[in-house]
């Protein structure tokens, strides 16, 4: 158990699982995110994105700049439906 390095707590992913996905060919950040589910859980990537970048960089030899980051999805923190429903208006788009 002590070798089990958890990199994404929301989706319960270990470093080995991320590496496995990269080896299957999901070797760009957008595909890796979607295939593993990392960065799409309740933390929205706050806990795992840096690990994902590090592992991708180590495995592919690309720099973190080359890999880039995924789109940051709103909201920054989870917001309950009843609060959103009480809003009088949105952002007027």
């Amino acid at each position: 158990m002590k070798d089990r390095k958890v990199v994404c707590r929301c989706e319960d992913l270990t470093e080995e699982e991320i590496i496995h996905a990269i080896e299957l060919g999901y070797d760009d950040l957008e595909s890796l995110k979607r295939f593993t589910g990392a960065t799409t859980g309740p933390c929205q990537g706050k806990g795992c994105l840096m690990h994902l970048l590090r592992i991708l960089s180590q495995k592919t030899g690309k720099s973190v700049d080359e890999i880039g980051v995924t789109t940051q999805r709103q909201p920054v923190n989870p917001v309950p439906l009843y609060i959103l429903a009480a809003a009088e208006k949105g952002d007027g788009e």
Partner: protein
Amino acid sequence: MTIKVAVIGGGVAGLSAAYFLAKNGAEVSVFEQKYLLYGASGRNSGGLTAQFRNEALIKLALRSLELYNTLQSEIGFNFLLRRDGYVKIANDEVANVLKDEVEIQKRAGVNVKIVDPDFVKSLFPDINENAFSIASYFADGGVVFPWPVVWGLAKGCKELGVKVYDYTPVSVEVKGNEVVGVRVDDELHRADYVINAAGAWSNEISRQAGVELNNKIFKEEICVTESLKPYLDPYILDVSTNVYISQSMRGEIVGGILGNETNNINVKSSLDFLTKYAKRVVELVPKLRGMSILRQWAGVYDLGRDGLPVIGPTKVKGFIQLNGFGRNGMSTAPAAGEALAEYILKGKSKILEYFKP
């Protein structure tokens, strides 16, 4: 001689066509401008239905439902397909629209029926039966997870020898009145046929070939809540407010509002959408009011001029359209890809007569 085909667009339409073409002996390459899943095939909610008003479209949908079943075992990839039904709910104002279309659907062989709110409550006990007055229920419909569909099709394609290029934008190359292939940077990739399966970008690709397409572009927004134990079985679309909800296999409540026509391609999310969506969802399923929205996004898709997909040959020899699916690409594109492969390799397809460019 082997037929060479270049497919532009690595979504469910392009990959389905590539899969069936390769399976029947063609030499196929797929070119995706970004990553697989960048377009509408990676941004939709995965609802599968045949509750349409056009008989030919219904046929494509029914065949696609069959294909989802067979393809996932043929390819060996789990699409996370659930056929727990697709329900359209409505208030009195649009009740007749729903009744009319159910008659069309029944004639076309769809296992669909008009039901009352209590019936819907028996499918999903948490729904507020006072928030709508009538529904149409398609028992064979359901939800698929679009991501494994795209990955699975890509895997199936690759195993058949198809080259799938991601992050590879291309342009169409025409000589005289005939397509010669696609251009990748400075290199010409020769092909006998070029298939335009570029979704919201299809108008632009078509223009490169000198063919007017004029598909309409729509933008649609979606969001997901935190995960719940699976308990919402069917896909529910409220045709009165255009709000829809379903539950993913990961447990999130996935929902959105049907898209609006737009002039430009942008995938920005809005707070307007979230508040409008939240207001209707808490009416429809009051118990969800405490659930938090985790994430929202938007996608763009194209719809053919007559509200139908655009599939088949154009005035430029070898340049083939496979686009304009609107928000129903997941429901109809696998069968469209299969039919197009038949058309290209055998010279005819009965079903495609109805979707000629």
